[in-house]
């Protein structure tokens, strides 16, 4: 993508003749039209979406799926393997049958319940990191791509950000402001922003040379409107794809941070925290790590499958290149 200083007319005639396409060369537009019908036919996207739906329902419906408190400690039932059954007294003094589907942890908390509630944190973090980094990245990317004099400044700053490891940044932020959901989201978002900026900038650089953008300039459309009407819509499809991948990696990163003890406060049930607590005993009681691990893996896999499916449907050429 050279800066295309002069539009060379001689290569022009080639537009009239598309050697492989006998039907008047499919313009890039037509690909975008059937996107949703293609997404619906894409198996990978379907499986991904279905799995994500299940996990969302799981997180939302956690109180319905389990009668227990995720933080409820039961000293009598510590370190029990999956399938353990007993009776316990509830708050009113009645005896209730209790069955630990996925076993219990070192404090006797029900791992099944904790995993259900853990889905909430993971999803909230995944979605908010994706949304935040796309929002910030989109704004910066459009500015860097369209206003050439700002490009160097913004991009060098992004290069700087990319050089900071997410984990290191998280440790710094947590030590500054304490562990909380906000801190974790910020710590994960910052290193993701540059990837979005790069993506958006490259699209904007391409689109700003399109004749329809020049046509808009010559009919007197003000720059903000040009960006809004003609440039931004072109970034949506690739950004949706990018957002799914961001979401997946954010969930993974949160789990890693929590596992290392620099993520969410340790009393909050997250998949990373559950695994961190099971770490010392996992050779004897592998279920403490196994179940949250499976859910983490399935969730990230489902999101990535959805992303892959979306990418294949939105831009078939891109799928061949990657």
């Amino acid at each position, binding site marked *: 993508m050279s800066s295309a*200083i*002069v*539009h*060379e*007319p*001689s*290569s*022009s*005639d*080639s*537009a*009239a*003749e*598309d*050697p*492989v396409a*006998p*039907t*008047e*060369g499919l*313009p*890039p*537009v*037509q690909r*975008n*039209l059937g996107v949703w019908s293609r997404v619906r036919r894409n198996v990978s996207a379907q499986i991904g979406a279905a799995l994500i739906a299940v996990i969302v329902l799981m997180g939302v419906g956690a109180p319905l799926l389990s009668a227990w408190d995720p933080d409820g400690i039961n000293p009598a039932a510590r370190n029990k393997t999956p399938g353990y059954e007993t009776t316990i007294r509830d708050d009113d003094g009645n005896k209730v049958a209790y069955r630990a589907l996925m076993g219990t942890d070192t404090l006797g908390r029900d791992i099944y319940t904790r995993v259900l509630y853990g889905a909430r944190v993971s999803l909230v973090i995944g979605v908010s990191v994706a949304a935040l980094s796309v929002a910030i990245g989109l704004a910066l990317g459009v500015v860097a791509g369209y206003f050439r004099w700002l490009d160097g400044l913004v991009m060098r700053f992004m290069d700087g950000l990319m050089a900071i490891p997410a984990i290191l940044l998280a440790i710094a932020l947590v030590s500054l402001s304490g562990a909380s959901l906000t801190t974790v989201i910020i710590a994960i978002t910052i290193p993701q922003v540059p990837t979005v900026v790069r993506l958006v900038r490259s699209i904007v650089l391409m689109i700003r040379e*399109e*004749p*329809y953008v*020049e*046509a*808009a*300039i*010559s*009919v*007197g*459309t*003000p720059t903000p409107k040009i960006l809004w*009407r*003609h440039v931004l*819509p*072109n970034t949506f499809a690739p950004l949706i794809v990018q957002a799914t991948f961001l979401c997946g990696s954010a969930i993974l990163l949160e789990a890693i941070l929590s596992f290392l003890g620099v993520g969410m406060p340790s009393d909050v049930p997250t998949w990373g925290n559950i695994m961190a607590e099971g770490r010392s005993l996992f050779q004897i009681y592998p279920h403490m790590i196994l179940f949250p691990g499976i859910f983490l893996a399935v969730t990230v896999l489902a999101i990535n499958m959805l992303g892959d499916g979306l990418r294949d449907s939105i831009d078939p050429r891109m799928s061949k290149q990657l």
Partner: protein
Amino acid sequence: MNAPVLDVRNLRIRLPAGGDRAYAVNDVSFTVSPGEVVCLVGESGSGKSVISFSVMGLLAKALEIESGGIALQGENLVGASEARLRALRCTRMGMIFQEPMTALNPVMRCGAQIDEVLREHTDLSASMRKTRVLEMIRQVRLPDPERMYTSFPHQLSGGQRQRVMIAMALILEPALLIADEPTTALDVTTQAQILKLIKEMQQTKGAGVLFITHDFGVVAEIADRVIVLKHGSLVEMGGATEVLMRPQQAYTRMLIDAVPAHDPPARQPIAETEPFALRTVDLAKSYNTISLLGRKRSVAAASEVNIEIRRGQTLGIVGESGSGKSTVARCIARLIDPSEGRVLIGGKDFASARLDQLHAMRRKVQVIFQDPYRSLSPRRTVGASIIEGPMNYGIGREEAMQRARKLLDILRLEPSALDRYPHEFSGGQRQRICIARALAMEPELLIADEAVSALDVSVQAQVLRLLEEIRHSLNLAVLFITHDLRVAAQVCDLVAVMCKGRVVEYGSAMQIFTAPQHEYTRALLDAAPGRHFAFAQAGAAA
């Protein structure tokens, strides 16, 4: 000797379901004899490239030969194994493509690429191969063969690259050469040289040539026999002069009639009293780069351009690629900022206008771009695209829509087009929509930057006619940028010939086309394909 090199019989190639027709190629039969140039002519989508790809066995997977036969020197190619086809390519059939830059491997030296053909298909030793390659490079008239041998494709010009392609295709002296629009991406002077070279090589090697083109000028220049295709079916076949002079079919006649004549028609002179719509004074654009070491480099894309257009007049800027004609157009439209000089529009200097003044001046100058597929935002309806400009200048939506409807009517498009998206329209229709968008601004100056170059010849004629009508009825000044001399001859009152960023000749179309003064203009006119051939239709395009 007279057994045909290529015998295509009842070839029928199915298109995937959902195409605009069932067959890409429908029941086409023809032969190519040794030492003969057969031209396949047709508009885009006529199936001519599909035929050439099927002969080479390079057909896209989605396309399937349903019936018929392709015989190369008697050997049937339909259903031949991939290994056999590979053995035949280059040894018995060679191919040259349209875009030599993409057909050559950018990371391999040219010599090595030609050498690869020999390495694959012969047992020659390395030194013998090198001698052979150098000899071939000499034969295709490339200067300094040793240097060419070690050059990368990007270091060569378009014409030189095409010569390398020809050397590659012909080094094993194949019996059949397939040339798929080999000169379409080249400048007219280069095109003339390449055509001459192909003709020459074909005569010395006695090969049969299947030449695919959309340009009747090229046909007149090179063809022995002509095959006209339309929508995948054979319309007419015969000797070149036969078909060009006495076409039997209405379609062929229509195509030939649409080719703009080479001599400019007599035009009514524009009254001296008409005000100037545009005057440029020493307009220049240069690009400055500063290297890391602080060394300054300046490239002049255009310099000292002085042109004038009165209202109702058409000024053509002609030149080859890189001549700076588009730069001038873009400077005048202030899509790029000129480095020097003035652009006077209605007496005000457009070139030095500040941003706030610019907004008011923009509406006076409108541009129609080259590529109809990229000039309209794919995500906006045609109506939204047309009314965008007027609404920027405070005209209400209803009034703007009213105006758009009126314009579509003038441009012979259905008013229902307003609610549809650009992809639903053909190239010619889109270009008319772009004209409507420009006219909605009620400009004084319309810049057509290669506006008809990407269109098929029959569509091109329609669009040119429309432009002429509009210029006349609205008393518009038109700046017409083109590389096509025939088109310029038909529509321009004045012509400026540009070469390397400078206007080398400037005068009335009549004078430039009938009595060119500058050497470069003469070279350009001489190089125009089919110039000896009278496409004898007075006022076909005008």
